[in-house]
């Protein structure tokens, strides 16, 4: 261990930016080479976004950028300037959970729950484009998200249940 008098911190200059996350503007300072995933998790403490590889291979860190699913591990925090970011923390509102969240819980689509935020946001984007997706559409659209617990089957069923409820306008009944 070193004596306390030595400099014990590397100089890392940060950039300051306004990030628009979950409908709110945040003034955030971060090291400029950080990925958006790291900025969200480490500088904003929004740990709901998970990481599985940090190489763009597993889909776990999926977030929505202007409504489009993006891998936050492959984006720099700087690139989010001027964009609307949505993370899992923004999915449930004051009046309760999103129908997708309710359906995932009800049908056991979240086992360990680690890939779940990424799947939920990817699913939200699917439903925004296609409110009644076929099973084939779900297979295609979710092909970039890995889950090791469920075999994907409960995830499909939960999205289909949520889609049906959203069509009927009954969020969770």
């Amino acid at each position: 261990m070193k004596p306390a008098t030595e400099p014990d911190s590397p100089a890392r200059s940060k950039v300051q930016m306004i990030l628009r996350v979950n409908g709110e503007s945040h003034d955030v300072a971060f090291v400029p080479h950080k990925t958006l995933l790291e900025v969200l998790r480490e500088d904003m403490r929004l740990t709901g976004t998970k990481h599985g590889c940090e190489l763009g291979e597993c889909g776990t860190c999926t977030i929505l950028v202007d409504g489009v699913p993006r891998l936050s591990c492959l984006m720099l925090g700087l690139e989010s300037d001027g964009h609307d970011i949505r993370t899992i923390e923004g999915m449930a509102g004051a009046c309760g959970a999103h129908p997708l969240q309710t359906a995932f819980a009800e049908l056991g689509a979240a086992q360990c729950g680690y890939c779940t935020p990424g799947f939920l946001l990817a699913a939200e984007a699917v439903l925004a484009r296609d409110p009644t997706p076929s099973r084939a559409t779900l297979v295609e659209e979710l092909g970039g998200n890995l889950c090791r617990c469920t075999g994907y089957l409960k995830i499909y069923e939960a999205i289909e249940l949520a889609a049906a409820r959203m069509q009927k306008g009954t969020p969770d009944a």
Partner: protein
Amino acid sequence: MRNSDEPLSPERQGLRDQLAEGYQMIGKSPIKVDAMAKVTGQTMFADDLSMPRMLHCKILRSHVAYARILSIDTSAAEALPGVIAVLTGAAMPIPFGILPVSQDEHALCLDRVRFVGDPVVAVAAVDEETAFEAIQRIHVEYEKLEPVFDPTTAIENKQEPLHDYGDDGNVHKRVSMEFGEVEEAFAAADLVLEDTMFFEGNTHLPMEQHASLAWREADGRLTIQSSTQTPHYLHKAMSKVLEMPPSRVRVIACPNGGGFGGKSDPFNHEIVVAKLALMTNRPVKIALTREEVFYCHRGRHPVLMHVKTGFRKDGSMTGMHFQSLLDGGGYGSYGVASTYYTGALQTVTYKVPAYRFDGVRCFTNKPPCGPKRGHGTPQPRFALEVQLDKAAVALGLDPADLRLRTLHPAGGITANWLQVGSMGLGPCIEKVVEASGWKDKWGKLPAGKGVGLACSSYISGAGLPIYWNAMPHSGVTVQLDRGGGVAVFCGETDIGQGSDTVLAMVVAEVLGVDLADIRLTVADTHTTPVDLGSYSSRVTVMMGHAAFQAAERAREVVARSVAKRLEVPAVRLRFAENRVFDVQDPENGMPFPKAVQVAEAEHGTIAMAGSYTPPASPGKYRGAGVGPSPAYSYSAAVVQVDVDLETGVVAVEKIWVAHDVGQSINEMLVIGQVEGGVYMGLGEALMEEMSYRSNRFGVHKIPSMLEYKSPTTHEMPPVETFLIESPDPNGPFGAKEVGQGPLLPMMPAVANAVFDAVGVRVDEVPVTPDKVLKAMQAKDKRYGPKSFPDLRITETMRVKTLEQGGDGTAPRPPRAEKQEVKSS
């Protein structure tokens, strides 16, 4: 829930009567108690934690497969601004390991590295980037040793042994035992089949990479929060290596982002961050990269197998000789138990009157293998179920009929002295045969299409603990508060399987309260009674019994007081819908909180404990500790495939699976486990493999999620699941395991379906397109290993079977050994 015949107290009889009238919770599918936290991103996994002044740890790992460490120069790393501490193995000379017989790991290597990825130096720095820069400035001088990468070479013992213990040289463990007279059994057979098969290693690939955060409390105690499936065993290992009394070490297991066995060992990085936290007096966190997780491994052992089985014309077996050679990797891990497990459960599905097992595990210079879902049993199950398919073809029998004719009887004792309880494999087979239209498909589909059938069984918890002790395997405390809340404490760890929910449901069933009134404190060695961990499919059965007992004792106290107050016999009281009332006059009762208050006024604070110890096994020979279980689950599956005749690509079109779970506690979670097991088995069957470049010093070929192929949505077929429920006398409410068993039939069912589709045998897992094509081009229409090495067995322990009048003991133990492995 009890074995003795002594009369029950009126309060307990009342509970039996209440349960007999129908369950309130058990078998239903309420949402998991942690589901909303998981779908809203609020669940805190280990890497989601952070603390003020927290340091970040990185570990420098060996880039060579086998070498002596000559020197370590850390001066440049120490000089880097932001580096707070640098740690080498010399500071932690005490070895550890999961099994008492193989305490062969060090938190950081002392004098030798044994695989690419072995940890050598650790750094704690103010941020992750500085720690990463620092480890690159460390210079380790190695003297390379000749590595060994496969067990068929390792068994020759021409290299310098990896360890100074084991059976001889690089043979870590050699086992040989015979139950009954196998050679006589072969002589009496109408058909004797001999097959050599290979099951490639694969890994758990949990979505969450391992992470740990450790800190020293103000009073000097040490706390670690970690992604571990076995906080109790980590607690023991940390206490040992860090030389701190267990009472001053606190291990909290975070919810695991998937485990599958990959977080069951105490890990070097966990001990390293704890040591760094003690050194720096600051919180220290490590989060492994995906590549590091591949090298941590402890996954499925590659196993080369030779199986010789005698069959009668009707398909029944006369005897079996099973040999397995395990590629263990660089350390012991669970390997001794894994070795036994490759020979343990062949006997619990079908009647095997005489049985011999020879097993050898070798050390090799690769990441250590250990327990992955099914621990040591999927490999032999593959060999056995594929051979049964061959036997059916040779005998002109339908593979389903052959299996149905030769089922092991329920309640019987196997040749190797395992006590079978309930046994629902017959109904499982019948269900999938009927649902899949097997009779119209097997041997009848057009070329390229085929169906395959396979079965399996798995333990519902190991009958013995990992380290010898006479204490319970699981403990639960239930504490009632005046507001009607129920606080439940248990050391169990939820790794996604839903054990928290099972715990809450069992207590809710007994006390008749809502799940929302139950508060769980779990997986914390400071506050919860020991549960041995989430491994060996043990939690539902063992924790379930302990929870039932604790809740029953709490209910008894409440019922006694309420009976007095209401002036009705306690046997007539029912606990349901948050009330306690007279079953003959339901209006006569009180809300549950009021009942607690009445009881607390009479008896004082109500906090009751329950615990569970599995029943003794009839097997008493050396090695009988691996295989016994309170109950065995059974599964059967039919897989339908479409094999591309040009490319050899196997597309699975549909899977039908039936699982004998005894009794579902939460049906939705049971089906989730079946589907998840099917998925994971399918990945093993078709694509997953750990492969290394032996010409490049044992570097992993594909340590990334892109290149280590696992099934995506595109590869996952529809699955039709059937549950067979006939309560097992040893299960809580009759429940048996479901977490591991349904994975096992997938690999053989796929291989058998490929045979039905294109008439070739791929005697190797995974069944990849190149192997299918090679088999189609081969003269013998087969792809697989050609030979099996001499295991150099010098002595075989002989145990008489029950039929021979044996008593479960071996008359002449071959030789004394240091310490016996109990189980895993």
